[in-house]
Structures are given as structure tokens and as C-alpha cells.
């Protein structure tokens, strides 16, 4: 039980008063941004990137992890009380959760969401602790060609599987890759896409891109749609559950966890698919028991399952991030950028180079999860009040922190101009329904991928065959081909009028 010992050590170092305070800050901030629709953990982490440069790695990771888990939890509150999901992962929760709330069972819906999130997050974090070392041990043996192939696979999956349109996904990806290219070529020192400008020679700071796209873009988007009819909020007291609710919730919690974790760990798995699957599963199981009538009118299983699934998938995200240095969500990409800014190379060697960091992080995830439950159950009515914050004040605050953050990195006014440019880009991609994830993944993973590509080609002396000389790499390329070709082939065998109507992709 080596893992348990390491985790216990991690718990010990995480249990300082200071670290606990950071975990609490992270969790509270995360819930705050999770509750408000339009603002998510990715934006919060991006805004905090520059602020945490003053802290050491472990502490900033503790804050970020708290924000991530808190954001997943906070989304459920809005779903249940307003029928307005704060996060895309909470869409499924809204279906039954809001019905429950309308029937006067808001307290139970919030309780099952909170406790389910806690259980799924805890089990998920333990699974991360057990899987990551094993995966990392295997991953050390992976060569540059396979690495390149894995990254390529992740990008293709994220761009083509998630979202409504593959074209939009790839537009986002290539925009991201282009932004990632700007700056001096690492090995030849040649300036690329800088337009002769010296400020761009160092490349575009990830803080500027992330804050511009997430925060300024969202603020512009909100400004363009400022006035909307207010929605009815359902008043809520302190969440609690009766004996019957417990009996009906634990099954969905565990099933949701089992569904969510693997999806979270795979690129393009995301939280949307497992929450949907969990909802469907619970409805089917209820049908088998003969009480499916309640589904559609506020069945507690329909809240417990998807909520557990989305938190388990949030935990699953850490497996590829810690073991391979491969981010699979927007928040994970920014976490990766944060690690890089501390001079830490995320990847299979992370477990051996920075064991303290990894185990303290995992331990603080467990602590954060517990804090989430302890803090949030009594605070639910307070979170509901947040929804009354007027948008102008809220977004003025966000813009202030965005500008402060972008300026503080280099103290260069040029960065503020760049921030605005990326804000406009962020507005444009929202307007045209281009997904953010492929874009941000392109920016962050693109340069890393280039390094691996160079390494692989250096080893083979420039021979293109050097990219295909590992079985894992070939497997990845095969998967990429399947992902790209399969939909086209399937479409041929289907009558045109069966084509699925395009989903609304705009968040």
C-alpha cells in the first residue's frame, strides 16, 4: 500500500493552517464562479494565474484545484434553483433538479447534489492517486514520436468529437495553434508571425490569451446581451435529506462516479457525456423498478447521478494531466500553463521529480472536497443571493482583474492591447459558436507538440519515418483516422433526412 503511505504524507503536508486557508479560498471562489452562469472555473483560474505567481507551486495548485471542484459543485445550485445551468456539465442536473425545487424539494435536491459531489470527488481523487503512478511509470517509456501522436490524437478528439460542428472545432484548433506559433523558433531563433514586432518575439503570454478569451470575451458578450428578463428563483433553506432520500441517492452516486471518472480521464470525454449517460441509466433503472413516473417530475435519482458523474469526471481529468502532462479540459490546460510557468515540466517525470507537489495536491483535493461539503451545505441560501448581483458591477470587476493580471506579468502596456485583441477574438468565437476548448488546447499544447515533433525528427535525422517507428504512435494515428473517417462513412449509410439537427453550440 505504497500509494496510501504517500497520500498520508501528502495529507500531513497539506494539513497546515496556511494550506487549509488556501484550499478554503479556492473552494469558495470556485463555488462563486460556478454559481454564476457564464463565468466558469477556466475563467477564474485564468484570472488568478498572475496573482499566484507570488505563491509557491503547491499553494497555487491547491487554490486552482479548489476552484475546479468548487466550480463543478456551484453549477448545480443554479441548475436546481433557476433551471439555468451555470456550467455545461450541470445541464442534466437542471432537468430533474429544477422540477424537484418546484415541488418544494429544493433542499433535498441541493443536498443530494452536494453529498453526491463529495462522494464522487473523494472516490475520484483516490482513483487518481492509484492510477496516476502506474500510468506515469508506463508513460516514462513513451518516446517522442508516440508523445507527438498522443497529443495529436487529443487535439483531433477534442476538436471533432465535442461540440456540434467539426468544422467549427477545427477552426478553433487552428486559431489556437497559430497563436501558439507566435514568437522565436526555439531551435533556430527565427522570428515567426511576429510581424517584426519586438514585443511579440517572446511569444504571446498564456495569461494574456486565456484572460482575453475567457474573461474579456465573456464580458464583451455579456455587454452585448446585457438586459434579459429576470428569472424566478426558488427560495431555499438549509439543504437536508430524509432517510428515503438517502436510500434512493447512494446507488446513483456510485453509478455516476463509475461513469464519470473514465470519461474525465479521456480527451474529449468531458463531463457532458457521462452526466447524460448517468441520467439515462437512472431513468432506465427507475423504469425497471416500475417508478419511472417520477422522472420528469423531479426524481432525486436524476440529480444524484449526474452530479456525481460530473464531479468524478472533474477528478478523472487529473490522471492524464499528472501522468502525461496532457490537459483534456480548458481548466486543465490553464493548470498546465501554470505549472510550466513555475519551471515544472508536466509529464511522466512529474511524479518522480515533484512527488511532494503531486501528493500534496491530491491530498488537498480530498481536503477541498470535504471543505466544499462543510462550507456549502449551510451556505446554499447565500449562494442563491449571488444571483442578484447586477451584471455591470460584476463584469466591471472581472475586467479590472483581467487588465491588472495581463499588465502585471511584464508591466508592459502592449500586453493590454493584446488583451483587448484576444477579448475581441473571444467575443467573435462566442458569436460564431466556435468552441473554446480546441482553441485554448491549441495555444497550450501546440508548442509542446512542436518540441516533441522536433525531438522525434532529430532522432531519426529528419526522416519522416521517425514519426511512425513506435507501435503506440501507429495506434494513435489509426485512431485519428477512425475518428476522422468514421462519421463520413456512417453518413453514407444513412439517409440524408436522418441527419441530426445541429445543436446550439453557443454556451
Amino acid at each position: 500500500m505504497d500509494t496510501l503511505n504517500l497520500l498520508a504524507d501528502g495529507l500531513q503536508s497539506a494539513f497546515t493552517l496556511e494550506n487549509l486557508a488556501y484550499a478554503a479560498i479556492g473552494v469558495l471562489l470556485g463555488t462563486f464562479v460556478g454559481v454564476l452562469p457564464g463565468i466558469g472555473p477556466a475563467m477564474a483560474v485564468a484570472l488568478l494565474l498572475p496573482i499566484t505567481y507570488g505563491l509557491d507551486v503547491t499553494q497555487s495548485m491547491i487554490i486552482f484545484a479548489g476552484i475546479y471542484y468548487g466550480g463543478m459543485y456551484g453549477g448545480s445550485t443554479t441548475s436546481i434553483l433557476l433551471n439555468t445551468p451555470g456550467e455545461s456539465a450541470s445541464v442534466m442536473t437542471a432537468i430533474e433538479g429544477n422540477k424537484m425545487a418546484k415541488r418544494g424539494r429544493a433542499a433535498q435536491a441541493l443536498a443530494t447534489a452536494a453529498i453526491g459531489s463529495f462522494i464522487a470527488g473523494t472516490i475520484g481523487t483516490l482513483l487518481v492517486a492509484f492510477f496516476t503512478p502506474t500510468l506515469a511509470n508506463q508513460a516514462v517509456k513513451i518516446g517522442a514520436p508516440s508523445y507527438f501522436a498522443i497529443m495529436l490524437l487529443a487535439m483531433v478528439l477534442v476538436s471533432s468529437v465535442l461540440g456540434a460542428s467539426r468544422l467549427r472545432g477545427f477552426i478553433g484548433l487552428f486559431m489556437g495553434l497559430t497563436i501558439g506559433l507566435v514568437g522565436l523558433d526555439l531551435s533556430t531563433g527565427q522570428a515567426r508571425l511576429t510581424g517584426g514586432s519586438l514585443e511579440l518575439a517572446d511569444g504571446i503570454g498564456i495569461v494574456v490569451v486565456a484572460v482575453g478569451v475567457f474573461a474579456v470575451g465573456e464580458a464583451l458578450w455579456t455587454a452585448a446581451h446585457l438586459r434579459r428578463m429576470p428569472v424566478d428563483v426558488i427560495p431555499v433553506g438549509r439543504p437536508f435529506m430524509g432517510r428515503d432520500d438517502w436510500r434512493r441517492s447512494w446507488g446513483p452516486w456510485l453509478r455516476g462516479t463509475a461513469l464519470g471518472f473514465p470519461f474525465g480521464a479521456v480527451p474529449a470525454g468531458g463531463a457532458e457525456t457521462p452526466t447524460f449517460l448517468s441520467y439515462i441509466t437512472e431513468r432506465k433503472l427507475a423504469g425497471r423498478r416500475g417508478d419511472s413516473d417520477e422522472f420528469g417530475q423531479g426524481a432525486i435519482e436524476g440529480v444524484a447521478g449526474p452530479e456525481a458523474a460530473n464531479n468524478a469526471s472533474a477528478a478523472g481529468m487529473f490522471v492524464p494531466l499528472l501522468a502525461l502532462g496532457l490537459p483534456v479540459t480548458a481548466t486543465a490546460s490553464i493548470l498546465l500553463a501554470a505549472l510550466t510557468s513555475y519551471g515544472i515540466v508536466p509529464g511522466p517525470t512529474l511524479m518522480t521529480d515533484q512527488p511532494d507537489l503531486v501528493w500534496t495536491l491530491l491530498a488537498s483535493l480530498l481536503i477541498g472536497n470535504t471543505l466544499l461539503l462543510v462550507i456549502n451545505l449551510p451556505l446554499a441560501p447565500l449562494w442563491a443571493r449571488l444571483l442578484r448581483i447586477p451584471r455591470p458591477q460584476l463584469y466591471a470587476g472581472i475586467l479590472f482583474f483581467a487588465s491588472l493580471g495581463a499588465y502585471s506579468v511584464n508591466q508592459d502596456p502592449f500586453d493590454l492591447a493584446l488583451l483587448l485583441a484576444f477579448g475581441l477574438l473571444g467575443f467573435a468565437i462566442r458569436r460564431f459558436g466556435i468552441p473554446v476548448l480546441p482553441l485554448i488546447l491549441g495555444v497550450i499544447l501546440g508548442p509542446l507538440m512542436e518540441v516533441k515533433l522536433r525531438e522525434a525528427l532529430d532522432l531519426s535525422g529528419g526522416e519522416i519515418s521517425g514519426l511512425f517507428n513506435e507501435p503506440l504512435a501507429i495506434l494513435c494515428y489509426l485512431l485519428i483516422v477512425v475518428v476522422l473517417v468514421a462519421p463520413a462513412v456512417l453518413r453514407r449509410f444513412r439517409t440524408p433526412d436522418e441527419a441530426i439537427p445541429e445543436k446550439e453550440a453557443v454556451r
Partner: protein
Amino acid sequence: MTVVVGYIPDKYGEAALTAGIEEARLRGAVLVVVNATKGDALVDRRYVGEEGLAELKARLAGLDVEHEVRQAMGADVADEMLRVVDDTQAQVLVIGIRHRSPVGKMIMGSVAQQVLLDARCPVLAVKPPA
């Protein structure tokens, strides 16, 4: 010939509504209930939601006065209210008022003050029973 009431679902709005109903009876006028929001927050307690609207309409239907409920959204709640006053050629506008601290007024402004100063008809300002 109308009596316009500025309504929000709390005790101040209730006081205004009660006085407005009386006023409409006295004058034999049409009662127009206005409820407005800035629409800049996700939730606005002072805006009457679907359920509240149905309740309000049912309550008014049980009365012996001709009535109408209007909801509006705009940058300035006072302007929205005054627009209805102009539209309906109101004889009188009824609003509920409350105590405000000078600081509170400076920061948040006062809808009541703006209405009192800008309305082109007499304004009846009422307070909820203490």
C-alpha cells in the same frame, strides 16, 4: 382616465397597490399596475415572475375596478414608469416610498425621487402601515 401604480412584490408595493385601488375606485378610473426591471441581473426580487403575475392578475380580477398589468424592462426603472404615465394620460401616479440613508441614495440613486420630480401628473406617495 387612469391611475398608474408602481408595483413591486413587497410591502411598499402592496401599500401602493392598496392606495391605487382606492384611488381608482374614487375616480372611477382604469387601474394600470406597472412593474419594471433593469434586467441586468439574473434574479430581480422586485420583478414579478410568472407565478407572481398570475397571482396578481387573479387578485385584481376579483376587484370591481377596470385594470391592466404592464411589465417593462429598461435601463432606468423610473423612466419606464413615467413612460406608462405618459402613454395612459394618467391622472395620478401612486408609488410606495421608504426611508433611505443619504449614502444609500448617493450610491444607488432613488427611483422614487426621480419619479416625484419628473412626473407630469400628481404623485401620491404612500408608506406601508407601520
